[in-house]
């Protein structure tokens, strides 16, 4: 039994240190990637579409909301190219 408890302490220590280390790496990798992408690949072509009605009567916030909604529902694969008011 005491051997098992010793193992439990080892497991607690090794386990938590490993999980923290890996998630620390996630943070470091994420930040490094963001830094490099911002520096070398900053052009994001997937901006919201312009108001296609030609009247300028769709508020930019609404356009952004529609684009975000479509991206969310289609898992990022869908693209809004035209918004028309009926």
């Amino acid at each position, binding site marked *: 039994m005491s051997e098992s408890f010793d193992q*439990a302490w080892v497991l607690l220590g090794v386990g938590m240190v*490993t999980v923290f280390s890996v998630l620390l790496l996630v*943070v470091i*990798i994420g930040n490094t*990637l*963001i830094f490099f992408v*911002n520096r070398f690949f900053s052009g*994001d072509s997937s901006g919201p579409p312009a108001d296609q009605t030609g009247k300028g009567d769709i508020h930019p916030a609404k356009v952004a909301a529609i684009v975000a909604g479509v991206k969310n529902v289609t*898992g990022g*694969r869908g693209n809004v190219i035209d918004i028309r008011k009926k």
Partner: protein
Amino acid sequence: MEILRQLYDMTALGEIGETPGVLLMILIGAVLLYLGIVKKYEPLLLVPIGFGIVLANLPGGNMDVVPAEMVELPGHRYMNLFEIASEYGIMNFVYYSLIKTGFLPPIIFMGVGALTDFGPMLRNLRLAFFGAAAQIGIFGVFFGAIALGFSPKEAGSLGIIGGADGPTAIYTTILLAPHLLGPIAIAAYSYMALVPVIVPLVANRLMTKKEFLINMKKQDKLYPPKFKIKNIKAVKIIFPIVLGVVVAILVPSSVPLLGMLLFGNLIKEIGTATSRLSDAATGPIMNTATIFLGLAVGATMTAKVFLDLKTLGIIVGGFLAFAISIAGGILAVKVYNLMTKKKINPLVGATGLSAVPMASRVANELGLKHDSSNHLLQYCMASNISGVIGSAVAAGVLISILG
């Protein structure tokens, strides 16, 4: 009269009468079906598991999974799949080919990856640490399980329930304590379904009113992030590749789960070019895997295996692992808040366990209850997604040390 006797002998009625445990198991299967169908608690899993239990416990159907010793041959060899199918029925074929080999959980993880958006985590990277703190329940409950008489491998399988991740719990249990697969899978999925009850229960006990009112958006305005992501799509595509390589080097035993999760995520993030792969991973493949996983897990739960004191220990221990994990996340945020100016709502820590996205939704609702302008969802999702990575890594540690 003889005809009637023969008809009676042909049915399972006689055997059911002789073994009352069978009736109890069928009742348990019925309860799971009720929870899945009527209460909508994890129906995609509880319905196949519940039906698998019913099928496995009806005598004569040959749908119960037999212990590994029964398919073992002299000289550390095993019967081939054809022999298993003809000797013990199709459910054993499914179990020994798809579950015992550890095939299905990573396949489900691939689908989970293709449904996961790392965006919220990448936008709030510092919150990823709370996904680590919330794994404390996995290792913490190990002590109690040992004291209750579980072997270290069984205790590890029990602890992984605290990760709140069904496929991870099943994968770890297959490798460490396959005889406990049924009760552990049931406990893991039941507690995941009870996240809307358990998270508020723990949070209300550990958090003050002032902490519930910490508004993350206001904190962001007071202390804005140092830089913005200019091309999130590129970051999202490169991230799973780099992370997969690094994790494979550091914790190789977690690669079957994490590697498949990250692959699934990559094919989703690439977009149209791989959309057919992503659709397959999240649709037909994941659904088929879920059906076989649920039915086979249910079929392991025969009266002889399930009606045991250890099952009770797993149910209690699983709850404790879950609650300790939530508490660990909350307490980690409290400690963090002591050291920084920019405060974090401890509910973000409570979602550091897997259970995506239900834990985040529950925490968001809880935050809105105290302040209707306090939308925490995107922040909770950050720690919630990192919790998926954290629990897979924790499973890798358990497997490499105890396996």
